[in-house]
């Protein structure tokens, strides 16, 4: 116990001493690593945010709006609605009149009310909002809707877009792959940076290491101070990255939420917490691994 404590104390004192003796190199490494971890965190958060948006979009894709002709009578509409309601492929149908449509638009876009006032009349059609049991049935329901005389003509019949689903899917996969590659590349870059920093530290202390080996210190005894030094750097880098990620995420979500109305951007605190933990773990792991590799060559005596 006494020996373990003494070893730890020796390692900690040496590590801090190393860090301070090479303050310039150490800080440069911390900031570079911090920036890399920031990019990693940013990439992961970005991927998560976009995926969340896209998944919301995807679930919305099982909804379809059937736009009704302005000339349709209430009886015709009720008749069509009940026909849809009895269709086994459809879960629910909700009628939305022109006023409700205008109200919804006004909620989504502040300037709509103004446009409506200028126009003098409401251009938005009434609609039957259909929720399907399966997305695959969108095509056939779309065909069914088009065949009805009270539905608007041509492309205006529904908001169905056949490409949207497959596009969204491949988009999510694509973003995940890109994010994965970016993270792996950045991971290796920071590993190399840590290795080089530790090599500098080892070089500065080569005489001490030589003497340690000479008088019979074990490999791990020699290694620990450098591992600790790497881990200190990793933790500091994670701290730098964490602050930037948290603040940046907050600011971006708040700003973009007002600019990109169609994207349901969410501030996901749980995921942010996860990213911060991950960053800290990555920092410690990178620091330790980089140091281990950096010292290895010098221990081969």
């Amino acid at each position, binding site marked *: 116990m006494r020996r373990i404590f003494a*070893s730890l104390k020796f390692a900690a004192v040496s590590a801090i001493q190393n860090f301070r003796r090479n303050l310039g190199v150490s800080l440069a490494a911390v900031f570079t690593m911090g920036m890399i971890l920031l990019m990693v965190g940013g990439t992961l958060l970005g991927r998560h945010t976009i995926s969340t948006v896209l998944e919301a979009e995807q679930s919305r894709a099982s909804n379809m709006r059937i736009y009704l002709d302005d000339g349709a009578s209430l009886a015709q509409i009720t008749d069509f609605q009940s026909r849809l309601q009895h269709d086994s492929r459809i879960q629910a149908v909700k009628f939305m009149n022109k006023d409700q449509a205008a109200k919804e638009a006004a909620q989504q876009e502040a300037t709509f009310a103004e446009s409506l006032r200028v126009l003098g009349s409401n251009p938005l059609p009434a609609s039957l909002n259909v929720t399907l049991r399966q997305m695959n049935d969108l095509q056939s329901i779309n065909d069914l809707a088009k065949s009805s005389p009270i539905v608007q003509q041509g492309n205006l019949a529904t908001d169905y877009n056949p490409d949207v689903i497959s596009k969204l899917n491949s988009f999510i996969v694509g973003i995940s792959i890109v994010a994965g590659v970016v993270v792996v590349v950045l991971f290796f870059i920071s590993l190399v940076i840590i290795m080089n920093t530790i090599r500098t530290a080892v070089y500065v202390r080569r005489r001490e290491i030589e003497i340690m080996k000479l008088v019979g210190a074990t490999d791990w005894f020699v290694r620990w101070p450098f591992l600790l030094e790497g881990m200190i750097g990793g933790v500091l880098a994670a701290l730098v990255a964490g602050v930037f990620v948290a603040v940046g995420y907050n600011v971006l979500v708040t700003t973009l939420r007002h600019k990109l109305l169609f994207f349901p951007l969410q501030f996901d605190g749980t995921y942010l917490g996860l990213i911060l933990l991950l960053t800290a773990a990555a920092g410690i792991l990178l620091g330790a691994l980089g140091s281990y590799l950096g010292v290895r060559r010098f221990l081969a005596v």
Partner: protein
Amino acid sequence: MSVLTLPRPALAADPALRPVISFHGVGKTYPNGTTALRDVDLAIYQKDFVFLVGASGAGKSTLVRLLIREEVASSGRIFVDGQEITRMPRRRLPKLRRKFGIVFQDFKLLPRSTVAQNVAFALQVTRPGQRHLKEKVEEALWIVGLEDKLHKWPDELSGGEQQRVAIARALVHRPRIFLADEPTGNLDPDTSWGIVQLLLQINHRGTTVLMATHNREVVDLVRRRVIAIENGRVVRDEMEGQYLKEGEATI
């Protein structure tokens, strides 16, 4: 040349005494093709004080490096304290090295540590949490006659004093074997003589001493066992030897 044909030191006659160090047909060829040692046989006993002499590049340093396993022999076997070391696994090397106290021509002191810290370093890194550290350090420095320089920095000391600090550091863990690789190489004759006196004292206290040296005056004056190496071979092993073979021409 086998062990048996070499002149043996007096102690070897006693079969109960195993050599502290023995080489059996040891050869060393470096990766670049240079052969530093060929077929070396030798045995060194507990109370021996041995001068290892020979020209630069003859193989003296290689022999020292093989002993502490800084290099691995290419052929043959080496025993230290009864253990075969050429095939010793890496994790056991620290234990092996703790049997030795080693000093070099260039002292190898830590410039940013005081005299006492330099000596304590050897104990801190091998036996962390050691009790009575201060007393042990002071005792080692007392042996080398530097008990009043505990808090000096290495660059405040003369070359001879620095070598004494290195000796204290090599002694502080009470090694079985003391290795000195050209310990007087950087020192003037008077200072060198003082260092050798110190090594003789250490030997007198029961530690085996192996000193690789170029210093002819010292060797001829002390008249202890001399092992001469030439081109990687042991060419002479005498109990009360001289730097050069009797009758050999001066270089």
